[in-house]
Each structure stands twice: as structure tokens, then as C-alpha cells.
């Protein structure tokens, strides 16, 4: 048992971080999809990573997919990345990022107007005034959409949770009040420590679910990663004080996206009920 990243996985993660940091700025993002970036991600193998080499993919597995989605979550990459990834090999052009694919997910469809292909029954979808300015949303009347991609959403939530923890720590070291950095106060320290605990617990769950490929493991990972992303964003906002409540800081974007993702893939209610039911059967 060696439950650690190997050298190739570290390199993959570092490469994806470098690509996204060099190419994407949250400051410039809008609710219009950046198709050039989408194609660049396709060229870098983001969407085709799990496809067999014979189908133009790289033949990697779920652990590698989780690592790149963690990076996407870290920078709050906009767009229906999970649905497009899952459509690679099924919908022509999805693997290369030429086609933007979205899917009906529970009661919601993200990025409906920007997508080239919609999977699932989206008839009668009505637009919402989305809480997340970087994720346009439609709502469908018959909430019986696909339940897929829970682990990839969980990976994005993990990336966001790690990022807001780092952001809070950086701010707490820099911002001074009462003659010292606010990070020297225990009340602030303890908020930050709890953020790390949530993120690391979610990381263990997400990575393990990627290795086992087990559905229940994925439900547990989604539950904990949703929790880590939402609560870390809230705590990060709190550490930022008044600045955290403004559009000047990015913190609110992490919180809003975390709320959106918590409704996608597998909701907390569904995951909790599923895990509870499995307890009855456990040996």
C-alpha cells in the first residue's frame, strides 16, 4: 500500500496548475464560455485523459482525473467541465474541447445556452438568476436528471476548499490589527486550522474513492468535499472581515460556486441516505 501521489501524478498536477494559472484569470471571467481556453484544455488532454490511447486519449484513470479536476476547482474554472469530460468518447468533439457538452443534473442544467450538446431531457428548462455569476443555470420541471460525476465535482470542491484555506492563511499573515497580524490571534488561528482539517479529510476521501472506484466511497467523498468547500469559503470570508463581504475579494465566488456544486452530482441528502442504508448491510 502506497497511498501517496507518484511522480507522474505530481507532474500531471503541476503541469495542469501551470497551464491554468498561465492561461486563466478569475478577474476576467464572465458567464460567456471561453472557447479558446476550452480547446486548449482539450489539446492538453484534460477531457480525453481517461480515454484509451486507441481513441485518442491518454489511458489514465480516475485518480489522474481527480487530480486535474482538483486544479480546475482551485482556480474556479467556469464551464461544464464535468459533463464534457464524461462525454469524451461519446459525443464527437468533446474529447478535444471542440464541442461543449452539458447535462441535466438533478433539477439543474449548467451552461445550457453556451453548450453545443445537452445530455438528458432539458425540454421546458427555465433560466434562473444564478447565485454564481460564473455559472449560468437553468431549472428543469421534471427533476430526474443524471446522477453522474459526483467524484469529479467532489474533486473540484476539494480544490476550492484547499484554495480558500490558503487564501485565508495568506490574508491572516498580512493583515494587521491591534499591532500584530490577525493570524497571531487564536480565534483566527483556530478558524484556519479547522479549514485545513476539513480539506485534508476531504482529500483523503476523494483520493481513496478515485482509487477504489466505489460508488459509496464517491458519495462519502462528495459529502465531505461539499462540506469542506462551503464551510471553508464561509470561514475564509470571515477571516477577511469586511473585505470578504465585498466584490473586491474572490472569496464570494468560491462560496457561490461551492453552493452550486453541492446541488450537482449527488446532493448531501441523497449521499447521507445512501450511506445510512449501506450501514444496515455492513458486516
Amino acid at each position, binding site marked *: 500500500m*502506497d*497511498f501517496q501521489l507518484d511522480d507522474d501524478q505530481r507532474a500531471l498536477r503541476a503541469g495542469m496548475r501551470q497551464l491554468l494559472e498561465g492561461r486563466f484569470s478569475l478577474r476576467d471571467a464572465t458567464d460567456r464560455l471561453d472557447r479558446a481556453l476550452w480547446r486548449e484544455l482539450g489539446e492538453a488532454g484534460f477531457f480525453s485523459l481517461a480515454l484509451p490511447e486507441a481513441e485518442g486519449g491518454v489511458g489514465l484513470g480516475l485518480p489522474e482525473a481527480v487530480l486535474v479536476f482538483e486544479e480546475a476547482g482551485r482556480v474556479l474554472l467556469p464551464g461544464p467541465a464535468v459533463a464534457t469530460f464524461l462525454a469524451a468518447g461519446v459525443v464527437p468533439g468533446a474529447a478535444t474541447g471542440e464541442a461543449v457538452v452539458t447535462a441535466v443534473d438533478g433539477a439543474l442544467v449548467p451552461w445550457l445556452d453556451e453548450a453545443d450538446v445537452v445530455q438528458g431531457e432539458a425540454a421546458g428548462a427555465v433560466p434562473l438568476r444564478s447565485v454564481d455569476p460564473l455559472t449560468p443555470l437553468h431549472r428543469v420541471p421534471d427533476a430526474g436528471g443524471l446522477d453522474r460525476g459526483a467524484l469529479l465535482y467532489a474533486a473540484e470542491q476539494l480544490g476550492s476548499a484547499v484554495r480558500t484555506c490558503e487564501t485565508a492563511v495568506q490574508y491572516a499573515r498580512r493583515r494587521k490589527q491591534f499591532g500584530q497580524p490577525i493570524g497571531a490571534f487564536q480565534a483566527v488561528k483556530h478558524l484556519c486550522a479547522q479549514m485545513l482539517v476539513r480539506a485534508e479529510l476531504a482529500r483523503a476521501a476523494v483520493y481513496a474513492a478515485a482509487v477504489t472506484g466505489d460508488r459509496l466511497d464517491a458519495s462519502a467523498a462528495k459529502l465531505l468535499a461539499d462540506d469542506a468547500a462551503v464551510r471553508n469559503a464561509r470561514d475564509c470570508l470571515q477571516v477577511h472581515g469586511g473585505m470578504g463581504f465585498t466584490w473586491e475579494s474572490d472569496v464570494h465566488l468560491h462560496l457561490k460556486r461551492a453552493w452550486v456544486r453541492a446541488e450537482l452530482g449527488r446532493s448531501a441528502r441523497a*449521499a447521507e441516505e445512501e450511506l445510512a442504508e449501506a450501514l444496515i448491510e455492513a458486516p
Partner: protein
Amino acid sequence: MDLTYTDEEEAFRAGLRDWLSLVLPELPAKPSPQDWPGRRAYDTAWQRLLYDAGYGEVHWDASPTQRLIFLEETEKAGAPYVGANFVGLLHAGPTIASEGTPEQRDRWLPPVLRGDEVWCQGFSEPDAGSDLASLRTRAWRDGDHYVVSGSKIWTSHAEVADWCELLVRTALVSEAVPKHRGITWLAMPMDAPGITVRPLRTLAGSTEFAEMFLDDVRVPVANRVGEENDGWRVTMVTLSYERGTAFVGEVVACRRVLGELAREARGNGRWGDPALRRRLGRLSAEFSALWRLTQWNVSEAQRTGGVPGVGGSVFKLRYSHARQELYDAAAEVLGAGSLDLAHEWTLDRLSSLSYTIAAGTSQIQQNIVAERILGLPKGR
């Protein structure tokens, strides 16, 4: 990333399982949790069985993965926990193994491994708990002895111990000697004249720890582990073991209890409550993740080949609270039955209250995580 075990590790697991299935049915009944002399006899007998079967050194010499397998399988099989051997096996033993002289290792380690001798922990004092470095029990040199006076509290297993891992002050605090310096780690025989032990009754009714009064107790200088005034560093080695590996088997136990809770709720009609189901479902995710975090930490330790790191604090912070939430959920499942001390879950609920205090309170752990992992400044 890999969660599979090697053939060698699987063979170790299979051998252990076979052995457990042979010896466990032959064990006598467990003594009452309040009966510490009875528990000492029971726990040391179990240690002797492990020793004779070749598992005596599993906490020290085995690879981290083997240790993990050992804890997982013994817990799954319902084997006894280390109990009265806790300080010797998981605390003083590893410390002596890494910091002691060859003579000290020969003197103290074999009896611990055989279950012949039991250790207690003399760290905390009435005014030095979380701020352990401010301890005041003094030791003066008199020839080839230290003469020790002072008092200790929360001295785990003192009632039944043969030896005490004792922290004493050997240099007065001054500008030249900050409080973390001037501390020395001693192995004190518990039958030395001048030691008075007064058991403390915990809120769970047990006397697992005690107050200890030391009145000119003579301890040979040869019993000093590490250098004089270097006891703090030696202690940090000990504490990293305590936080790093001490709770691993319990996570497996908590996952088992969670299944028992669900089936109990199904049997007594509480399962129809969606709030309870969701609460148990969430706890299931938490304990699964704590197990995965354990595997992550063990893999990291195996790679670096080192002592468990501060990552143990991250684990302990969440685990100690999750354990309390587990037994609160048990109380909800049991209803009025949760007030019955005859029920094992009721005693476990009471015991779990210590988890956020012992081995460094949650607040201290949060400071450790914030300062040593996240790099936040020290301060108020």
C-alpha cells in the same frame, strides 16, 4: 496512489487472522472497566500471548503498514486493546527505543514487550497541563542519584504501574534557561520510597489515572533517558508517537459501532427518522475518511521512514470530536436506554468526553496545526 497490499503484507494479515481465531475464544472474560488491578492482569496476559506468538514488537519493529494491518485485524476480531500496557508500548517504549542507551533498551524494553512490567505517564502537573513546559517538579543531583520532589496529576495507570516516565525540572528557569530547556526525562521505579499515589475517579467511574506526590524520591542518574536538561526534545519524540499512531485501531472500532447503531435503530423503530438516518450517514462518511486519512499518513511515514509527523494533529482534531458525535448518536438511538450504565455505549459515551482534552486539547492541537503546518505567527 494505491490502496492494495503486497503479497507479504497479505500473508502477515492472513497469519494474524488465523492466530486470532485460535486464541480469542480461549480468553477469559474481560474484567470490569473500574477494576484496574484486574485489567492490568488481563491486559498484560494478552501482551504475553502476543509476545509468545511473535507479535510483541509489532508497534515498534514492524513497518507502518504492518502495524496498520495489526490494529485493523485485532480490532475487527474483537481482540483486547493495549489497555494498561498503553504507556509502556506506545509511549515510553518507543521513546526508550529511539533515545535510550543500549543498556537502557536491554533493561526496559523486553519486560514491556513480554507484559511483565507496566508503565505510567508522569507528565502533567496541577499547574502544567496544556502548558506542559511550565512544570515545577524539581530534581536535584545527589551523587549518582536525582532527588525528586513535587506533584503530578493525570498520571495515567499510576495505580498499577511498575515504572513511570517522569518529567522533572533539573535547571531553574532564567534568562539563560528558558522553560523548555531545563527539563529531564527519567524512568522512576514506582516502588521507590517517597511516592504517594491517590487514584482519581473519572466521570466514567474509572481510576485510570491518579494524583502522585513525590517527596525526596531517589532516582538513579542511570535512569535518565537523553541528556540532562534535554527532556523536552525527548518528550516531543514521545508525543509525536502518541498523536501519530495511538488512535488507529479505534477508528476501525468506531466504524463497527456505527453499523451496530444502524441495526439497533432498525430494530427499535428509530430508523424511520430521516434526521437520524442522515446523521448516521454523515458519520459513516466521516469515519471512512478518517480511516483513509490514516492510510494516507501511514503511507507518508513509510515513504519518509520517519517518526509520525504533525499530520497526526489533523487526524486527532477531527477524530476526537467525531467519536463524541458517534456516541451522542448512540444515545439518540437508545433513547432512555442511553442512561443505563450497564450499556457499553453509555460508558463509551462518558469515556469519549476525554478525547478532546487528553494528549493535547483540541485548542492546543489547533494552535499546533495553525503554527507548524500553516505557518501562522505565534501570538496571543
